[in-house]
């Protein structure tokens, strides 16, 4: 227990942890503040103003149409050809209709908490996952590269307990940051919805759904932190985690995309990690195989493949387990020199 508390203290005392936490706070606050300026509450006056503008646009369009028809008739009377310029029958059939001028087009953007907050949970998770990645990798990577790990093992010659205590301290910290900042993030967008948008139709079921989205987001953040920690421990350097992340990105998002494109593999995106990340947040992603269609034979409904968040859990879970077990296995076996 003392080791765990010590590692918690060590992590919180680290300059990088504090710096990144401040940057994370500033970043999230900046996004929420900037977004609050872009959303506008649709008051009855704003709606009436949009309606009035739509009516005015309609009237102006009718005037323009009438003037065009009159000009066309005059030109026809002079014996000029009018069809190319004004269309058949001087364009009488194109008389503007009121429904062509929807007042919604004149409304400013209004944030809808119910419809849009899930997307902002993904934004939040991305920012906190980046924090978890860097803090997780450097927490153990710096210990290895400076000799701090060796020093600690001279005190506590229980390798798995030492690595486990460090990981537990990291995950506790990341969880605490996620929960606290997540609560503020939700509150901030609830306030934006209340005062500068709408929180209509936010039922208990919606809150439950948001809660589940939040849980999946926190799960991903913790997994990212743990994987970064494990990679840095495997390579005994912070840069190992960064290098591995770049390599995975290059292979998954570039090399595999090119390969499946060249080979013409059906549903190629199922081999790309970002598809699973998307499915994790959106609950599911539908992949369509348009190559299976022969449009010359008429309308075609392309083949479908559904990637669910459970599939993502399996893919990420296996990767997570392999890296983590590898880190602990190597910690147990390796010579520390």
């Amino acid at each position, binding site marked *: 227990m003392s080791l765990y508390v010590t590692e918690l*203290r060590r992590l919180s*005392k680290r300059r990088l942890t504090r710096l990144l936490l401040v940057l994370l706070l500033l970043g999230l606050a900046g996004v929420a503040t900037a977004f609050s300026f872009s959303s506008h509450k649709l008051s009855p006056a704003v709606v009436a103003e949009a309606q009035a503008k739509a009516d005015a646009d309609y009237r102006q369009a009718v005037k323009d149409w009438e003037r065009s028809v009159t000009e066309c008739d005059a030109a026809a009377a002079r014996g000029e050809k009018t069809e190319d310029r004004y269309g058949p029958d001087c364009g009488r059939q194109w008389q503007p209709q009121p429904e062509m001028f929807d007042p919604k087009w004149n409304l400013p953007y209004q944030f809808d908490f119910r419809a849009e907050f899930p997307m902002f949970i993904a934004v939040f998770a991305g920012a906190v996952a980046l924090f978890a990645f860097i803090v997780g990798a450097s927490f153990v990577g*710096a210990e290895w590269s*400076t000799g*701090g790990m*060796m020093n600690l093992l*001279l005190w506590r*010659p229980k390798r798995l307990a030492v690595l486990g205590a460090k990981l537990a301290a990291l995950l506790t910290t990341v969880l605490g940051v996620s929960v606290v900042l997540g609560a503020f993030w939700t509150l901030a967008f609830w306030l934006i919805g209340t005062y500068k948008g709408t929180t209509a139709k936010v039922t208990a079921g919606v809150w439950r759904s948001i809660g589940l989205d939040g849980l999946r987001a926190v799960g991903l953040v913790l997994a990212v932190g743990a994987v970064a920690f494990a990679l840095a421990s495997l390579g005994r350097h912070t840069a190992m985690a960064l290098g591995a992340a770049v390599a995975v990105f290059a292979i998954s998002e570039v090399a595999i995309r090119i390969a499946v494109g060249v080979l013409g593999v059906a549903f190629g995106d199922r081999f790309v990690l970002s598809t699973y990340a998307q499915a994790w947040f959106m609950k599911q992603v539908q992949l369509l195989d348009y190559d299976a269609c022969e449009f010359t034979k008429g309308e075609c409904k392309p083949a479908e493949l559904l990637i669910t968040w459970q599939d993502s859990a399996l893919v990420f879970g296996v990767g997570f387990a392999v890296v983590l077990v590898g880190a602990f296995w190597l910690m147990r076996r390796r010579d*520390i*020199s």
Partner: protein
Amino acid sequence: MSAVLEIEGLRKTYRSRKRGVRHALDGFDMRVEAGQVHGFLGPNGSGKTTTLRTLLGLIRPNDGRMALLGHELPQALPAVAGQVGAIVESPQFFPHFSARDTLGLLAQAGELPRQRVDEVLELVGLRDRAGERVKTYSLGMKQRLAVASALLKNPKLLILDEPANGLDPGGIREMRSLMRDLAGAGMTVVLSSHILGEIQLICDSVTIISLGRRVAFGPVEQVLAAHSQGTVRVRLEAVIDLPRAADALTRAGIRVSATEPDHLLLTGVDKPASVSRLLAEQGLYVSELTPVAVDLESVFLELTATAPVPGQHRQVDQSTKVGEPGSAGAGGGWGA
């Protein structure tokens, strides 16, 4: 006396595709008695740090037996770790932590009282700089901090790898005094160092390692005596008589190891008076007859065969291997 540290037949082999097989430790033995200050010497790459790391559970040996404070390792290492303080090579600390933070975290991990941090800071002379970041410390101050971290547990056995590294002359003397005080208080100290003059001054006993094997061990004075070889320097009243004297001594069975322009060096002389008598009988009169004392440095260089040779550049793995023909340690006595 009981042994605090015992190593028997320790082996550690590294296998590499590029460099092949290398025996870092090749049946190494070591024994340190309780309450001693024990010097652990060896040339670069001889296996000192590998030995300490293996002993402290950082490296897995291929074979051999190790015990600390009467407990077999590595099984009992977690149980005895609280009684062993160690620094292995110069440990690095987080540069943005202060010395007090660094030691405080270690004390917390070891469930030690907070006041112990201040005690060791006082002991190593860092009390007034304890609140400053480690990155502002000099090499010597970092070394003091490392020693403080090893002393934190108030250990029964203190293992220090190059503790005087980076210390100024005053610091080296303070360190020497600290070692003596700790040993006086009943702590056993194992000291690895290349400052052989210091080792000779501080240590009660030594172990010398070369290419992974022990080449000498025992109390310092016995190791020195075993390698002094009864060397005496002889000067005559008339320098011109030196060849005659060398001839007479050789005929009498005394080994003349060097004939210098103004003196002779004789080895294997048990009783210097016999030399004086022998030469007097030949009409040669001695003006100086001095036993030549050896120091630890010369013994070390002899045993490890690492003395510089003009015109040659010795490589790190070029030192004595026990058991090979011509090796200095193979002649019995203190050799393994």
